[in-house]
């Protein structure tokens, strides 16, 4: 009887073939863990305007207002009717004690007409807030 010893050996060390795969998978895992940022995603998807501006997001407490290109406005996770923005901001402000440290961050879609941005800013000012910033995406050139 002829016993094929090579076959038996390869069955014993079946895991050896997967080790390079595990190496790669581990490397990818470490890459995504270190380089990616796990953060809460927004209620709606928006494409903020691109800019060469390099100011990082401030760590101050802020109220986030998201506006889609269709003009739907969300404060945090809640959909707000267009005329009610200042009332909604005032409601949100009740949770904050120090009014001066609160800022408003506008995440508006790049396609939003400036006229709508202007009306939004007017309502933010009516709510009594003056620290307003626009969120932009970093781009290499002013394209």
């Amino acid at each position, binding site marked *: 009887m002829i016993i094929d010893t090579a076959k038996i050996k390869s069955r014993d060390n079946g*895991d050896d073939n*997967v*080790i390079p*795969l*595990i190496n790669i*998978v*581990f490397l*990818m*895992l470490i890459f*995504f*863990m270190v*380089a*990616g*940022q*796990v*953060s809460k*995603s927004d209620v709606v998807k928006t494409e*903020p*305007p*691109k*800019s*060469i*501006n*390099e*100011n*990082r*997001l*401030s760590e101050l407490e802020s109220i986030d207002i998201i506006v889609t290109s269709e003009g739907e406005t969300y404060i945090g996770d809640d959909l707000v009717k267009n005329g009610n923005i200042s009332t909604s901001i005032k409601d949100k402000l009740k949770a904050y004690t120090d009014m001066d440290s609160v800022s408003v*961050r*506008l995440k*508006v*879609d*790049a*396609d*939003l*007409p*400036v*006229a709508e*941005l*202007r009306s939004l*800013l*007017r309502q*933010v*000012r009516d709510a009594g*807030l*003056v*620290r*307003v*910033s*626009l*969120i*932009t*995406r*970093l781009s290499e050139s*002013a*394209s």
Partner: protein
Amino acid sequence: MLLDLGPVRKPARISLTPLIDVVFILLLFFMLSSSFSQWRQLDLPIPSAAKTDAREVNVVRLLDNDGSISIDDEQLNIRSARLGQVVAARQGAFGIDVAEGVNTQSLVRLVDALKQAGAESVSLGGVLP
């Protein structure tokens, strides 16, 4: 005296398959949940009504989404090289005003272009309420 210890047991090999399963699940989680977008913020200080700016303001009117602007009745494009000369020839701040139908991306692009052309102070006087 000889002790009967039974057959010699080989140490059991730990199978790698469950490990790979877990690592794959972790990999999928991090791949799907991590984001690489780099957010930046552009401050838009809202001027209070009482505050008046004594400096001269050059009004830059953004005419359309292609980047046509007019500064003191002079028309040019934000991509043209002449913008640098036009900006350098003027003192004071630049106040941006926008025409109907212009979108936010064009406004931000104009702010960037003015900053790159050397404008020290750019205000959104015509945009902010």
